């Protein structure tokens, strides 16, 4: 399974218009030992990850680490400011009055986790304003599902086999697409 990267110039892909057939097709084709390069769908299809053998993403771990960073940055900076850098008396409280620092610490934790994760997310998903998407078929964001196979390194016979597998699995169309 690819890492969500485009490795090929030319693709063969099949179009399905219902989720169920689409999912069956994945099973059938992988059963034949053919790796699927990309599976396009207009919405998150449940259970597709296992069928394609996609490992669970590590996004949440990133979030956790970043969150902790936030916590400690906040507490650290506040403590340094109020006790070392510029201790000031407010309303008869001690310089380091922890309860008062909790809200900001919490907010910074959430902020760092969220913002950090978002950037990790767009990085890993190769999303960026203005990026030209490499899509085999535009209808896949509307109502069609597609399975795509890179064929740059494949022989005529293999390609033929993929095509025929696709149509056998109930693809309404089987086309080829090439990116320059």
């Amino acid at each position, binding site marked *: 399974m690819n890492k*969500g990267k485009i490795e090929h110039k030319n693709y063969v892909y099949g179009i399905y218009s219902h*989720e169920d057939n689409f*999912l069956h097709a994945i099973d059938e084709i992988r059963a034949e030992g053919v790796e699927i390069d*990309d*599976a*396009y*769908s*207009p*919405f*998150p*299809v*449940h*259970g*597709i*990850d296992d069928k*394609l053998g*996609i490992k669970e*993403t590590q*996004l949440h771990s990133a*979030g956790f680490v970043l*969150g902790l960073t936030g916590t400690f940055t906040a507490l650290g900076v*506040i403590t340094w*400011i*109020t006790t070392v850098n*510029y201790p*000031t008396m*407010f*309303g008869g*409280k001690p310089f380091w009055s922890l309860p*008062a*620092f909790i*809200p*900001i610490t*919490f*907010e*910074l934790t*959430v*902020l760092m*986790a*969220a*913002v950090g*994760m*978002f950037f990790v*997310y767009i990085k890993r*998903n*190769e*999303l*960026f*304003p*203005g*990026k030209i*998407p*490499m*899509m085999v078929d*535009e*209808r*896949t*964001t*509307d*109502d069609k599902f597609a399975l795509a196979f890179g064929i740059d390194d494949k022989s005529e016979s293999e390609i033929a086999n993929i095509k025929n597998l696709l149509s056998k699995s109930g693809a309404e169309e089987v086309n080829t697409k090439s990116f320059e």
Partner: protein
Amino acid sequence: MSHVDSLIREPLILGKDKTYGQITTDIVRNTEGNPPREWWFAFGIALIGLLLYVVAVSWTIFKGIGVWGLQKTVNWAWDITNFVWWVGIGHAGTLISAVLLLFRQKWRTGINRAAEAMTIFAVICAGQFPLIHMGRIWQGFFIFPYANTRGPLWVNFNSPLLWDVFAISTYFTVSCLFWYSGLMPDFATIRDRATSAKRKYIYNILSFGWRGTAKQWSRFESLSLILAGLSTPLVLSVHTIVSFDFATSVIPGWHTTIFPPYFVAGAIFSGFAMVQTLMLIARKVQKLEDYITIAHIESMNKVIVLTGSIVGIAYITELFIAWYSGYLYEQYAFYNRAFGDYYWAYWSMMTCNVLSPQLFWFKKFRRSIFVSFVMSIFVNIGMWFERFVIIVTSLHKDFLVSSWNYFSPTWVDMAIFVGSLGLFFTLFLIFARTFPVIAIAEVKAIFSSISEAAQEKHRKEHNH
């Protein structure tokens, strides 16, 4: 394997011959072609409001806060009332998308996109007030803890007002991320339907070049789940912290430990009301009755009656505790609320927030578009008065009788409030014409989760 869904539950999507394609068209339609006349009309009014806002705020900054009705005893009134009111409204969106997502409340999908948008715009409006209420807005940057040229001079980490700065900005940022990450796939959908190259280009930029591969989707889901997990405590924290502005003070009527839960409930209350108002209009104007169904409206009303009752209990508890405290300043503060100079504000609050929502115990009213709409307006009025009552009646008669005073607003106070509504609706109307007001992908997802057979059945039912 696709979900087995119960056919007992009322369908979340209505209308005959719904297909994925149909869903796309229904929703994207509103971003294509010229807006209808109603829209232009509404937009015009909103713009006038916005202009009023600009004038009033400019005048304030030019002359000084003195052009407001504030005085030596009542140093906050409409400004902070509006702030808290808007922040409260800004709670529904994130709550709907985050909390309901965690609770797997599928009905949220119909409304969450618009609700989140509303949240963001409401927070934008809210954010105005802490700024413009400053005597020296041009020094506003002092509230950020930046290393500065004035020697090691920092902010005061004990101040609830500073907590607000962090809470509101964090809340705003996270809401935006949450909202936008959900928008990317839908922008992609619009992009791929687009006929003109220009439109394609713009929406591609907005979509960050979304492709919709399985891997992207899996990260997408995991991101929204975690953001939801983060937003839930966040959304609760924001109004808690706003309530600290009052709860941590010494003023009778402000110095109240019940405030955090009470404010949060109030926030959800007003937020849902505002969502309700907008939804009811949007579904009509944008012809989305099939996606924002009576079922949605009813669920919203259930939340409203619940939170409304929580708020009601809070009011009564306050009164009880005031009496029970045996502390005369506290006792008088609350007596003064109900029977003092501003009794009319208190009782309008009580009527709008506590009494009227009780209607929603009856299914008939819960499912009536008209009642829901009127009620949603009521609640928004009531919640504005709640903040006014808390702020002004507590301040105008506090400890030293010698400084007791009576507050009356000036035209500027009013213009700024009305104007902020203008700002809000301007933003919302632009959103309604350019963005997918319903989360396309998510709707498709729940649509698909109805098995093929069910979909068949579903279509048949709606054919006759």
